[in-house]
């Protein structure tokens, strides 16, 4: 017996105000105190360092201005962070060097990003044999101790700052390529791409409206996480004497100089070391926060 019950008025279910993926991500990021802290610290440092870099005399000293009479001095009113054996103001050198380290970090990350994304996207889109070959190549490169090659490259290329970050970038793109390829392949298979296709959307529209936004997430995350590695690599090279050359300073150079006289003048090692660690900290926390915010899969409440 068919039931002819009248349809009752059904209340639409209250959903809490639709949020787009990006808004949701931003909200999650904002709630992550550590990530916000990291972002704040980085921003402040970046502003300070780049200002010092662009306006070399802003602190009242230049990074190479020596004061042999004064010599190495602990922090004082005139020199907030003290001076090194040649009487150069540490604060100035720290900020100026920071500008260099951060620029190298940014440029090298950019280089690695460009290479990695293009390589990974091609491999992911192409699939099949080409993809297999390309990834095999990456696997082999991954296995090699690239630090050795950077050292060789630096020796080969001479101490040119520009080439420095090209070298670093050329060696750091592997992870990015892998991630991008993985994402492209996962997205390619997703049903919503087929659905869009079935709806008749043009290829280009599919790529831009659907695939790219899904790529941006991991790219942003790994770019942010690549920066500290790159900065570390630069300072490692400078420490070995292969990167930035005196009288320019970078954090690596400062740490090297500080380590040499660590016993007598500890501030020369501690301040640069602390600032660099702080930068790496902030970038890592920020990267972690971004990863949690953008990767829906990964968050656990």
């Amino acid at each position, binding site marked *: 017996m068919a039931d002819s019950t009248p349809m009752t008025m059904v209340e639409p*279910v209250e959903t809490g105000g639709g949020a787009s993926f990006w808004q949701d991500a931003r909200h999650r990021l904002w709630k992550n105190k550590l990530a916000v802290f990291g972002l704040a610290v980085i921003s402040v440092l970046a502003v300070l360092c780049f200002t010092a870099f662009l306006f070399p005399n802003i602190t009242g000293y230049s990074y190479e201005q020596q004061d042999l009479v004064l010599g190495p001095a602990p922090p004082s009113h005139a020199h907030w962070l003290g001076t090194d054996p040649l009487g150069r103001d540490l604060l100035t050198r720290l900020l100026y060097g920071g500008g260099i380290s951060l620029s190298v970090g940014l440029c090298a990350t950019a280089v690695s990003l460009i290479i990695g994304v293009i390589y990974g996207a091609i491999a992911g889109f192409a699939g099949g044999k080409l993809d297999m070959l390309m990834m095999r190549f990456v696997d082999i490169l991954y296995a090699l101790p690239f630090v050795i090659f950077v050292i060789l490259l630096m020796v080969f290329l001479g101490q040119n700052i520009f080439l420095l970050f090209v070298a670093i970038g050329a060696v750091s793109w592997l992870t990015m390529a892998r991630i991008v390829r993985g994402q492209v392949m996962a997205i390619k298979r997703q049903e919503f791409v087929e659905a869009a296709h079935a709806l008749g959307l043009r290829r280009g529209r599919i790529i831009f409206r659907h695939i790219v936004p899904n790529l941006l997430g991991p790219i942003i995350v790994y770019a942010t996480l690549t920066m500290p590695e790159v900065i570390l690599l630069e300072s490692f090279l400078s420490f070995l004497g292969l990167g930035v050359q005196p009288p320019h300073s970078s954090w690596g150079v400062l740490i090297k100089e500080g380590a040499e006289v660590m016993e007598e003048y500890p501030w020369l090692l501690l301040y640069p070391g602390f600032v660099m660690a702080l930068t790496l900290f902030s970038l890592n926390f920020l990267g972690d926060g971004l990863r949690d915010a953008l990767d829906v899969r990964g968050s656990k409440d």
Partner: protein
Amino acid sequence: MALLNVENLRTAFHTRNGVVRAVQDVSFQLERGETLGIVGESGSGKSVTCYSIMGLVPQPPGRIESGRALFGDVDLLACSHRQLNRIRGRRISMIFQDAMTSLNPFLRIGEQLIEPLLIHEKITRTAATDRALAMLDEAGISDAEHRLKMYPHEFSGGMRQRVMIAMALITKPDLLIADEPTTALDVTVQAQILELIRKMQKELGMAVILVSHDLGIVSGFCDRVMVMYAGRVMESAPTDDLFYDTKHPYTRGLRQSIPALQMKGTELHTIPGQPPDPHHPPPGCPFAPRCSHAVDYCAKEEIKLLDVAPKHGSACLRVQKENLLV
């Protein structure tokens, strides 16, 4: 005395978007050897009820807010971890919906099969392996000796579920909780699995709680049925009474929605609307917004499960107050 006596169980999840009251004031009793079916849509709280009893609710974000689950004289919700571990897998076993993810992909089947024995009984590995072989045989898995050395991914879906059943029953428990054991399987295999459970139940004299969203499956298998919606029990009765003397509009809707029972060629019957948002439950009866019999007090008064006929409980306010015929 009842084998299992659940009283006023309340379980909630504290998520970043708010509190979800997954189980609200659920009570029921289970006798030895009895088969109870728990039916409901996704999100009705039927699985969480079972997880709560077994202590498998992840405690954050979940929390068992109140209630008792008396198994014999032990309150499963309040006893120590050690006591709980002595009961789980030995006197109460549970099988899950997706056997593929519920079996450890890194361990051989044999290893996983004898694990309950090694944990709960003083038994040597060889003796345990013998029992495992016997169990696989009983569960209808041929070539048991070879199978023991294989990994889960080498089995088909139906066979994996048989292995799960064997694993759960190897300690001859008093109660088996089966959480949607057939949902992920083909129809033909579904029947076989249910047959297996029934056979084992007869042999071991154990009680079974069968959780499903499929009223049809439950009707063929269970002595009693409990219908859940939005975390609450809506109706609870012996199977025949539930079907022939339905006393809740929701149950009626479910019954009418069984495709096999409808005339060919007519439009499929559905219950209009959606289950309520678990973060913002409406006041009063949760089914009221979708109920064709709803009147003004339905959306205002809190519901309770009360007996409206011998052994037949209903949470419908109108049935309780006015003896509404649904």
